[in-house]
């Protein structure tokens, strides 16, 4: 009897499964993404807009949790069961997929030539000849602050580093607010919102980043160690037990109004807008001395490409062409304030906080995160080590100098700059 029921259930389940896999007559393109957060935006705005202008092509947005995305996508691509459209991580992750023949070249895609070289740099081969993803969005680093707290304590937005620490001291002395909401438990906060946020002002943005790749500068040089030194000073202004404070903890700490300043990425804007019950403002990373050129991390973060083995290459290209259009850019940037369009046509944004962030592009020089291009190709991985060392420096387990030495030693063990 047992076995009969079993067979029945087995059959039932396979019938159910195949029913699920049945196709309508339209071509359906499956989109792989790590942006669970964007599911409503795709379903409510982007997909209807696309399907309206492209009858016969249906879209399905299938995001997975960001922590599993890369591993799952890799396995699916290897076994040929991945979706037609792939959301691309910047730089080497996607480059590796392209080199394995899993992402298609988009050189002949109409509209791809309209993107700036900086925008394309995250998704092209080292020689710059082939582009394999349409650049979609970048994120900008800076600090978001609680305006009410600043008003109450009579504080002004700091321009220089000295002013910045003076503000922190004043908040600490008053005691109502925790000066800064950041923890080191998840490591990446320390590296991304800390080191990569304030660092460009020290290593002079692109200049330093390129010098590092060329081997002309070392991570033990003052330009690269000094941001660690500043980071080490942050320790006194973080909340109690920041060593065990995770990223959501920091977000909640700030949006619940317990902390005054939040070292941020622009992606926080939409979440903070809905959660925080107070007015917020933003300022770019403070410079050393008044009048210094300021540099910001304006990091290419997300692109969209095409599975080279897609069964519907024509339709996939049609979709990507649309992704490269101003129409897509406008919907995307406004639905997700804080993910700034990489399209060369300027996009009008309505969110004031997003406008503030994007206005820094005019007065400061933009750069991308220093570890992303080329330098994280080997073992040990420079990006991972930067996470660990940034946290170590703030925790006080390593001095800034030790951190610089460890990172440079790891890099030297596999990276030989081109002469």
């Amino acid at each position, binding site marked *: 009897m047992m076995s009969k029921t079993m067979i029945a259930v087995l059959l039932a389940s396979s019938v159910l499964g195949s029913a699920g896999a049945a196709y309508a007559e339209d071509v359906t393109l499956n989109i792989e993404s790590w942006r669970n957060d964007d599911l409503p935006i795709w379903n409510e705005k982007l997909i209807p807009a696309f399907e309206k202008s492209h009858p016969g092509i249906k879209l399905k947005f299938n995001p997975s949790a960001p922590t599993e995305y890369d591993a799952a996508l890799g396995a699916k691509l290897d076994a040929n069961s991945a979706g037609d459209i792939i959301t691309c991580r910047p730089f080497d992750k996607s480059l*590796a997929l392209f080199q394995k023949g899993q992402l298609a070249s988009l050189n002949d895609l109409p509209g791809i030539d309209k993107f700036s070289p900086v925008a394309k740099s995250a998704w092209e081969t080292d020689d710059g000849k082939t582009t394999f993803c349409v650049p979609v969005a970048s994120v900008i680093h800076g600090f978001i602050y609680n305006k009410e707290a600043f008003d109450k304590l009579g504080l002004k937005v700091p321009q220089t580093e000295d002013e910045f620490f003076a503000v922190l001291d004043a908040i600490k002395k008053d005691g109502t607010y925790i000066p800064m909401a950041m923890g080191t438990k998840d490591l990446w906060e320390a590296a991304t919102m800390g080191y990569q946020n304030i660092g460009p002002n020290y290593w002079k943005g692109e200049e330093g980043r390129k010098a590092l790749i060329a081997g002309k500068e070392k991570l033990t040089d003052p330009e690269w160690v000094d941001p660690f030194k500043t980071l080490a000073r942050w320790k006194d202004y973080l909340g109690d*037990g920041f060593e*065990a*404070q995770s990223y959501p903890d920091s977000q909640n700490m700030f949006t619940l109004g317990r902390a005054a300043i939040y070292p941020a990425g622009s992606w926080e804007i939409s979440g903070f807008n809905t959660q925080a019950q107070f007015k917020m403002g933003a300022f770019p990373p403070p410079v050393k001395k008044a009048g210094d050129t300021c540099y910001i991390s304006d990091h290419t973060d997300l692109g969209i490409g095409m599975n080279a083995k897609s069964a519907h290459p024509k339709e996939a290209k049609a979709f990507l062409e649309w992704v490269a259009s101003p129409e897509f850019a406008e919907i995307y940037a406004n639905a997700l304030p804080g993910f700034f369009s990489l399209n060369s046509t300027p996009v009008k944004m309505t969110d004031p906080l997003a406008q503030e962030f994007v206005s820094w592009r005019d007065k400061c020089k933009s750069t991308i995160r220093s570890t992303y291009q080329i330098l994280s190709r080997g073992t040990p*991985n420079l*990006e991972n080590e930067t996470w660990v060392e940034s946290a170590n420096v703030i925790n006080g387990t390593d001095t800034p100098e030790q951190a610089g030495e460890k990172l440079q030693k790891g890099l030297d063990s596999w990276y030989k700059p081109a002469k």
Partner: protein
Amino acid sequence: MTNTPAKSRPVRWHIAVFLMPAVLIYTAVMILPLFGTMQLSLFRVENNLSTFVGLDNFRTLFGDPNWSVNFWNALRNNVWFFIVHMVVQNPIGVVLAALLSHPKLRFSTFYRTAIFIPTILSFVIVGFAWKLILSPLWGIAPNMLDAVGLKSLFAPWLGQEQYALTTLSLISVWQFIGIPMMLIYAALLSIPDEIIEAAECDGITGVAQFWKIKLPLILPSIGIISILTFVGNFNAFDLIYTTQGALAGPNYSTDILGTFMFRTFFGFQLQVGDRNMGATVASVMFFIILAGVCLYLFGIQRRLRRYQF
């Protein structure tokens, strides 16, 4: 084992029939794929070409300090993870089972279910619950310690190198204690009443009865539990991954073989997954576990006396 059917029947088809379904599914869906992965450890990909490199990957893993430091660190942490389980989880599990198996105990179903509930939970929930409880910000653990006047004992354990791993081991113990408890409980219940009654006639009761009569009888079960704990701990991954992330911070202090292998095999953030080195780590893990299991099967299990009831 002592009893085999007569040798007059040359082909005993029923043995094949009994083994067939399990062996088929297991071989096709598990062994062959795993074998496919393991053999990757003997290859290396260069310029999109896979070349046979013999044991070179193993040499890299043990010889190249960029790999070996991480590997030994993960192994050390894993051993500690296992020790905590053996010292805390299994004795407590046995004690709970012994208490629960007392025939006159009331509410035993309730206790048994309640203690087993953590084992049912998914890692996402376990990770979230304990992060929330232990967080210095939201005040559950600090306030509770404060209430008993021990606030000074509180520290951000999950963020400190010296405590994080032990804390996670204890969380894992909390989660999985139901398993040794259930196995021992089942073993204790299947001890025949006659043996217990005979012991009681001889005046052996209570704690003495447990030590002298029951414990020797459940030793085989304790053996199984130990080996299951060993295997489970050296394959552990999810809890660390969900609470500390793939980099197993702070400063790799909670990195165990499972997280190290996953990071290597599938990659993480900018780190591109290295199937060959990942498979190498996995093979080493496999040999460690195999060694442990063989030690148990041939060294320990044979010395345990088995009783047939």
